[in-house]
């Protein structure tokens, strides 16, 4: 006799979102978490007294506003503060600012190239079109193109009509957009290298691809979709660090009598007669439920939690070939004061922005080459933020916290596993790069947490430390995510589901996969669908 209707493995933000919807629908749900804190990669942790680190994910990227409103996350303490633009420091000692204000951005681009300022108008228009096309898909279940079921056929027809509705010109542009490299896509618009480098960054974050790798262009959307969403909450800081996102989702879950168990690592998923029936914990306890949902990535789920014989060889093969590539490291730095960046001047509002210290596509591509060859980038692409300028609660008064996301770092080095010395060397590379642009930066460091992809895997459980739970490339997107035939959140055994970023629409702190999975589970249980669809704004 099982006590629960559903068990969700992993208390990451998607797991919690999924559980919240199941609980809201009236199901009895238990969430199991291996760590002694919840949140997965959306956490705030105090590793140095007085400082709160968002020590994994560091911004709300495209958190779905529908979910934010529907689960009343504001009431549960989540407050998202928009932050301002981006800035790129050039080798020549200048800066290039990116603003959320379109006209301001255009003027800044004009400082580098008049032609590019004009191109920016076209560029923004074209990208916005793509955003509007893709946005409603985030909160829908992808159809299975090989199936003849009415549900799938209807969805395919809907999709096809939508695509056709774009008109001939835009259809072609859409296909090109999804298959081109971000560098080549930008080269069709812009001539100035600083402009191109600054705009390309969002195309390579978190992925084992370089700016010249085809398939990176569409990642630009991530950056622009926030603008189109318009509503606060899609891109921004969570007040109190990223842990606030998880805590708010947990709050929504608990409001509907959900139960969370921490320090409860799942060892195995129990399968009986081709149906998942429960889980075994590391401590030997067995818990039963009719439905099991995994928030872990596919590799961890299928290769570690299932008994080998319970799965088909073909599935195992698909899982083994699923591409999860750790490519990013992270530095969390406690600072004794605010670092100065002379190129920017004092009190520049761009201090609140993402800072980047790499100003050409070739430099970024070379950073990628290092990764390919099993080294961390000697001249990395760093996405650097000082959240405490926006949210001072994260550090003692007058002190600051800096989050540095580093692209690229391999999960395993050419020389072998990461050692302490490697970690130190990696940290030094990053700190030196920032130090070049901020003379007092190094002296202000109170504490620095340096994390290799391996560290991220060990702590959070993300395979290879890949922040998206799997590369976001064409072969692993939409109806191919995580792999063909399993894009609708159902696993290969009955009663088993996936709800993490390994599923559609993929990584980022969106909470969309969790919500999408809940929709399918409720469908199977013949319950009313309570998961919101994307609002249509066109």
């Amino acid at each position, binding site marked *: 006799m099982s006590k629960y209707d559903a068990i969700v493995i992993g208390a990451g933000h998607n797991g919690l979102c999924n559980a919240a919807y199941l609980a809201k629908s009236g199901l009895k749900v238990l969430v199991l978490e291996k760590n002694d804190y919840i949140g997965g990669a959306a956490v705030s942790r105090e590793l140095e007294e007085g400082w709160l680190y968002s020590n994994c994910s560091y911004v709300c990227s495209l958190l779905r506003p529908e979910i934010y409103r529907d689960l009343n996350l504001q009431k549960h303490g989540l407050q998202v503060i928009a932050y301002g633009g981006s800035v790129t420091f050039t080798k020549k000692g200048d800066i290039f600012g990116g603003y959320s204000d379109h006209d301001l951005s255009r003027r800044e681009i004009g400082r580098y190239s008049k032609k590019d300022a004009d191109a920016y108008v076209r560029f923004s228009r074209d990208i916005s079109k793509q955003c509007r096309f893709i946005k409603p898909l985030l909160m829908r279940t992808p159809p299975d193109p090989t199936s003849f079921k009415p549900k799938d056929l209807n969805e395919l027809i809907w999709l096809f009509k939508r695509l056709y509705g774009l008109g001939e010109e835009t259809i072609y542009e859409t296909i090109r957009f999804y298959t081109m490299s971000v560098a080549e896509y930008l080269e069709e618009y812009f001539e100035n290298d600083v402009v191109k480098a600054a705009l390309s960054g969002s195309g390579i974050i978190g992925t084992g691809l370089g700016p010249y790798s085809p398939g990176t262009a569409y990642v630009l959307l991530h950056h622009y979709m926030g603008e189109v969403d318009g509503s606060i909450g899609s891109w921004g800081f969570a007040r109190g660090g990223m842990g606030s996102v998880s805590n708010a989702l947990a709050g929504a879950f608990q409001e509907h009598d959900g139960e969370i168990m921490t320090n409860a690592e799942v060892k195995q998923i129990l399968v009986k007669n081709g149906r998942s029936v429960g889980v075994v914990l590391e401590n030997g306890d067995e818990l039963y439920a009719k439905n099991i949902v995994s928030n872990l990535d596919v590799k961890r789920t299928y290769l570690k939690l299932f008994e080998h014989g319970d799965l088909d060889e073909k599935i195992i093969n698909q899982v083994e*070939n699923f591409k999860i590539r750790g490519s990013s490291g992270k530095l969390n730095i406690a600072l004794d004061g605010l670092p100065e960046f002379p190129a920017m001047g004092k009190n520049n509002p761009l201090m609140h922005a993402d800072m980047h210290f790499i100003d050409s596509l070739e430099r970024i591509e070379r950073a990628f080459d290092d990764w390919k060859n099993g080294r961390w980038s000697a001249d990395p692409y760093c996405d650097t933020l000082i959240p405490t300028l926006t949210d001072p609660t994260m550090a003692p008064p007058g002190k600051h916290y800096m989050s540095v996301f580093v692209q690229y770092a391999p999960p395993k080095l050419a020389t072998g596993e990461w050692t302490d010395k490697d970690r130190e060397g990696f940290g030094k590379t990053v700190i030196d790069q920032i130090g070049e642009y901020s003379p007092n930066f190094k002296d202000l460091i109170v504490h620095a947490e340096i994390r290799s992809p391996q560290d991220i895997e060990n702590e959070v459980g993300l395979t290879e430390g890949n922040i998206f739970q799997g590369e976001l*490339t*064409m072969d692993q997107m939409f109806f191919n995510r995580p792999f063909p035939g399993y894009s609708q959140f159902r696993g290969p055994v009955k009663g088993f589901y996936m709800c993490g970023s390994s599923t559609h629409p993929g990584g980022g702190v969106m909470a969309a996969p969790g919500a999408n999975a809940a929709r399918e589970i409720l469908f199977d249980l013949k319950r009313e669908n309570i998961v919101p669809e994307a609002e249509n704004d066109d």
Partner: protein
Amino acid sequence: MTKKNKKIAVVGAGHNALVCATYLAKAGFSVDVFESRSQVGGMIGKRKLGEEYSVPGAAHLLSHVDESVFKKLNLKKHGLEYSAQDLKTVSLNRDGNALIIDGDEVDGDDITMKEKKEFKELNKRMVKLAGFLESTYGKKPPRLGSDDRGDMFSLASLGLNARMMGADSMSDLLKFIAVNIYDVLNEFTDHNHLKGTLAFDAILGNHMGPRTNNSVITYLHQLTGGANGKNGSHSMVSDGTGSFTKSLEEAAKKAGVNIHLNASVKSISFTDDLEITGLTLKNGDAFDADIIVSGIDPRSTFNCLVGPKKLEAGVVHKVNNVRMRGNAAKLHLALSSKPKFKGISEDQLGQRIVYSPSMEYLERTFDFNKYGQISDDLPMEITIPSIHDKTLAPKGHHVLSAIVNYVPYHLKEGWENSKSRVLDQCINQLDGLAPGLKGLVVQSELLTPADIEEEYGITGGQWHHGELTFDQFLMLRPVPKMAQYSSPISSLYMCGAGSHPGGGIMGTAGKNAAMEIMKRES
């Protein structure tokens, strides 16, 4: 006006242009072909090396041919002769362990039974996908978003074809089509040398490394067609590919095509309403025509023949963005006797010899190319055509023809002072693979991508008239809305490799263009 009265001028006499011209002439049009060089065939054809030697110009092997075109034009009757068919691929590495690939069989270099089976499985699945690709080749790509019944039908049959492959193959297609060959090959086997050899086919002549996404399409493209219906098979044509060009020329003439050699076209002439009136040659001669078909690459067509001022800004922009980065050079050597390659027996010398020891090697080499530099160890496709064709060299002597990949068009240091250095480097590299070869060299030349641009008039020296990538493929080739062999200027058509289905000695683009012209102009 009936088609009998319509005059067609074809620019360029490459193989696609000749195929197109011949089809049109057979259909009753009056067709004139204008070629700037003194012989037809474009990149295919015999080339002199010194006084006594001949080599195949740029292309040296026939692969993925469209047999239906060959048959329709009756090329065999007109003199096409193979000097060798169904060549095996012999892949070298530095240690002299050769790997031999013959269809779906592989042997050599300590390959195990398991790996042989893995290759068979890979081949089976890829050939199936290539078959799907090929099913789209023989007709014009549909326009998307149009209400035209023909387009709708064509698109629907594309979808249907994909479905008819069965769920597994359709999944394969969706999964593999936009990714890179590196990941795909790693899924199938661990044999590095085998993977390096296969990946070489994907990257040859393209601006990509094995890890570049889209390299699966190029691999599949290589597997389409094939002489004698054998996928991916290679053949050599006698007389240094000359018998192929000669047969095309004969077929064209027989059909009534007038071929003008040494007739370089300067521009297309228009009325004020942009109606075509004919073309002007560089020597000042003018020629009247109602229809112009361009066999040259899309960028040259619009920038040089039409002129950007006559086109919408958006069109000019798109055309200029067609990526045409050539990065394959051609090496020709005359040798005083047969070279001896390490690990290759004498009777294997006549096969297609490849140097590409591993995918990692290829990727590293490509990294140099990316930044406009040249690695000191370049991948090559080597043939010794004189083994099968004694007429190419004096008795006992031989000629070697190699495509050297990852030689960039834009060399950072400039080509002016680097060409002889790169030529020496290539010879030294070959000497390492075939000890003593250096001492046999009587004549040598290297055609860099810049030379190929100069000699054959292809922008960027890009063999395929535009890189074959997803965003320049099918209905996007060469640019959206022009994938149906037509252009914004009515009565101006394109028939070269820049159009669907792209490069290679297929003749399919020429045939498809001819069909479209017949339909629209009759």
